């Protein structure tokens, strides 16, 4: 349970600083051609890291009950189903056409 857990200003400031650095890093890295889809992968990894910092510290999830973790996990799990099953269809359509000729 999160009630009562007071996070220090110092930790909040450190998280804020890290988020700013990551923002500048992702904007800077976007101008470098990493080849293939590496640019997109790096941008999403940085975004994921930023989101994780916000969720764990700003949203106090690190100090929350296991039940809260289950609720949040369920939300992201359904998002994963939405993305994975749809893309499994869309991305594999070309294969079928190639096989049929």
């Amino acid at each position, binding site marked *: 349970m999160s009630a009562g857990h007071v996070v220090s200003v110092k930790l909040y400031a450190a998280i804020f600083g890290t988020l700013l650095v990551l923002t500048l890093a992702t904007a800077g890295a*976007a101008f470098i051609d990493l080849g293939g889809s590496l640019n997109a992968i790096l941008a999403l990894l940085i975004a994921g890291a930023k*989101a994780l910092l916000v969720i764990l510290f700003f949203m106090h999830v690190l100090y929350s009950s296991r039940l809260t973790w289950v609720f*949040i996990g369920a939300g992201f799990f359904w998002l994963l189903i939405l993305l994975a099953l749809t893309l499994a269809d869309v991305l594999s359509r070309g294969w079928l056409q190639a096989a049929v000729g």
Partner: protein
Amino acid sequence: MSDSNLAHAHQFDDAAQQHEASWLGMWIFLGTEIMFFGGMFLGYTVYRGDYPAAFADASNRLDITLGTINTAVLILSSFTMALAVRSAQLGARRPLIACLGLTMALGAVFLGIKFTEYYQKFVEHLVPGGGFGLSGPLAGAEQIFFSFYFAMTGMHALHMIIGLGLLTALIVKARRGRFSVAYNTPVEVIGLYWHFVDIVWIFLFPLLYLVGRHLQ
């Protein structure tokens, strides 16, 4: 955890259970929000897979400087919101009101910059529809990109405006002294909402602004 001395509604055993119910209820709502924005992120992913060149070219027409500044503004507003929750937990009324006011001001700055960007897009005829200014083989798919741009940033901006309304209500309540060390759940759960809207933007920024910069 239970403290029967604290005020709580009659359907709860104690204030701790009441708090846990509000906290989990907010997370269920945010779960539906993940689904809501998830649908748009999915649509964006499918069409970007179909038209990578058009998405890269259209993305380069967005103002990356304003986008980066807005990302920083929103992250700063999340920081002040976190400090507001901290002030509420400590029962510090004046710092709470100050932090909530600062968060609102930063949210307004974000929306102002967003408005400026929208205005530029209208001037440059980059709004999908009859007056769309781009031509050539990519123009059709570039309209799809700008449709996603306006739909996703528009829904995000609507969430920000709702957030400003919620923060206004919190400031009014805080000024009346409704929050204390023992009871600050509204500040906490609206904080969750504000951080969630920040997270949506954390993903919108690279997907909309940074797609094609390395191809320029």
